[in-house]
């Protein structure tokens, strides 16, 4: 299974294997990554699964939808050019090794 690396705000890293077809959010919540709240359960409505994708890797992702773009304007932690919602990143074999940084707050 592809691996996704989560970097906590304190610098700790967790490498997690996530099934192809699942979202990065689903992988994170199943493995107890506490910084990912996902209050809406993955329906792209709440912006509480905000992550910062590694600068070098943002180009690996499918571009975001208009809806995700609008939701990111409401994140609790500051929006950056590499901000994405983890529920909208579907894991594929090509994303193996993806590194995402977790914000210090989601609400």
């Amino acid at each position, binding site marked *: 299974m592809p691996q996704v690396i989560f970097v906590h705000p304190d610098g700790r890293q967790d490498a997690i294997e996530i099934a192809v077809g699942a979202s990065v959010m689903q992988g994170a*919540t199943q493995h*107890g990554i506490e910084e990912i*709240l*996902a*209050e*809406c*359960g*993955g*329906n792209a*409505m*709440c*912006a509480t699964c905000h992550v910062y994708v590694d600068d070098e890797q943002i180009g690996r992702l499918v571009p975001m939808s208009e*809806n995700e773009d*609008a*939701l990111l*304007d*409401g*994140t609790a932690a500051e929006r950056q050019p590499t901000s994405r919602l983890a529920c909208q990143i579907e894991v594929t074999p090509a994303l193996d090794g993806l590194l995402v940084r977790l914000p210090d707050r989601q*609400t």
Partner: protein
Amino acid sequence: MITPQVEPRDIRQAPSSAPVSDVDPFSDAFFEDPHPIHEALREAGPVVYLAKWNVFAVARYAEVHAVLNDPATFCSSRGVGLSDFAKETPWRPPSLILEADPPAHTRTRAVLSRVLSPAVMKQIRDGFAAAADATVDEIVARGRIDGIADVAEAYPLSVFPDAVGLKAEGRENLLPYAGLVFNAFGPPNALRQSAIERSAPHQAYVQAQCQRESLRPGGFGACVHAHVDSGEITDAEAPLLVRSLLSAGLDTTVNGIGAALYCLARFPHEWERLRDDPGLARNAFEEAVRFESPVQTFFRTTTRPVELGGVAIGEGEKVLMFLGAANRDPRRWENPERYDITRRTSGHVGFGSGIHMCVGQLVARLEGEVLLSALARKARSITVSGPVKRRYNNTLRGLESLPLAIEGA
């Protein structure tokens, strides 16, 4: 109560292999204590047939979640109550969002999503928090209060109608109108019939408030109408979308906040944890929504023959989803009967799931969070101080009265 096999009955269509149940989920006995019946329905099978109303029903998390997330098969445009709009005239013009399917739903949903977006919540947050502080200051000063009238109703009424942009006159119609809407999803029982019989003044009030000229500039209502100017919705659609805010935006949060107060008053250990860390307020509210499920049920209608949980269901069948039962399904939740304010609640279906998931969920969470946070900071104890009375509604689970004694911190 639950029979394992199909028995000869006077039912419209014998279900293929679903266990048949005599349970009436719209009866006073059910409203008083749904949990043992939920358990029996979950244990009976993934899909059951309710002979009383001739509908299929799902009470396990997996099937409830599956139905919610397959809107092409389980549609909403034939009504999300028992009444099938393909066979009966709806009691009011159908909702353009709740009672609609893609692609029509996609467009109207996008408008309300933007009106109630995370970015908008940032703008209203401070005002909602200040109002919560004021509500809690007042109840702490009084000491003995009714948690429903004085908090669960008073707080949302102090923020939501203003946020929508409603004028001051006539707001007493809002809760009766919402009660009517949620009773009307139920079967033609006394609750539904009497609510509809008394509905004329409330309907007239709501219809008038939904017009552009009635709504204060800058409020949610005016923001809906502004999307007419950008061509996303028509003049005729905007008032109906404002109506959705008034139908579903108030009574739901009233019952959500009421649920949270009732939980915190009943489970002193969780109240102490909240006092120790008021930062848990938001999750304490979310867990109350899972635990009590203020919106208990919704229906869908099948658009084609489908097999669900091994049961064949024909086209045009109503399927009742027990959201409250799914939220306590031990197949999905550890210790589901426990109110735990640090539980990972993500995935509960108290706000639904999928394309129809509550569009106002962010407003609900904001109200719940700031109210519980104020309570945790300003009160030392909160205890039930008198007889608790349940309010009966075909869809909403909540209380009529919750006498509370509150000590200041």
